């Protein structure tokens, strides 16, 4: 597979942007800057390969629909931060790790294996938008990454909290 060259200026500017966004949104980047920048190189490599920021520590299918849940920030980041103090690749960490009070570790994979992912997706669709939702003046949309909820006809273009695009929202009510 031919690899595109990753420019150091690009890595640095993305690092600065992610750090700014994390700091202002209540998240923390891994304080090991070399490790973190290496993950950013992985994200840029995956962008060149697949066209999106697939998690550098997971195998991408190359199909965006199939990989949507592992596009950074992934659907599993926040529960992993709660349970383990770091997301799967450890780009994002808890405050304790960011302050150097604890060290980020390799954590178990929370993403369901492929054979369980499809049925779950279908179940989600049928479970969403229950009957009572029809009584609400607006549908309620939930960001699958950070849990942000909003009641409006359509989800926002970009999540105002975690900045993921519209396609990462699900109908909640």
């Amino acid at each position: 597979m031919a690899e595109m060259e990753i420019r150091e200026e690009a890595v640095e500017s993305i690092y600065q942007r992610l750090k700014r966004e994390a700091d202002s949104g209540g998240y923390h980047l891994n304080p090991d800057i070399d490790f973190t920048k290496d993950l950013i190189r992985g994200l840029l490599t995956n962008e060149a390969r697949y066209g999106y920021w697939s998690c550098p520590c997971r195998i991408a299918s190359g199909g965006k629909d199939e990989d949507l849940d592992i596009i950074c920030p992934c659907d599993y980041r926040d529960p992993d931060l709660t349970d383990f103090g770091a997301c799967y690749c450890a780009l994002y960490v808890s405050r304790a790790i960011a302050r150097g009070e604890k060290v980020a570790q390799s954590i178990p994979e929370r993403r369901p294996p492929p054979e369980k992912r499809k049925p779950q997706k279908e179940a989600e669709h049928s479970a969403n938008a229950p009957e009572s939702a029809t009584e609400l003046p607006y549908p309620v949309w939930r960001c699958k990454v950070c849990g942000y909820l909003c009641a409006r006809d359509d989800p926002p273009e970009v999540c105002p909290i975690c900045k993921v695009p519209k396609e990462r929202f699900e109908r909640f009510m």
Partner: protein
Amino acid sequence: MSVKEHIKHVSGSKKRNVTLYTLSTCGWCKKTKSMLNDMKMEYDYVDVDLLQGDDKEEALGEVRKWNPACSFPTMVIDDNRCIVGFKEDEIKRLA
């Protein structure tokens, strides 16, 4: 082609047969490789994300056999057990 033809060999002291399945972009995979290098262990590895088509499927099938979650790094030891993830203490015990 088959996965075997993509496997890279790192020489060192050989106490066990170690085959490491990794992703070229993964931080934990890199830490695992560099720890084995520091320990001067002999091992084989393949970056599964750099494979394509049947070779990739074959490698994923092999990983799944040892680690149904199919996560990386997966280290197969002596063809009878595996270490999933960067587990420093477990890797240390291989020396």
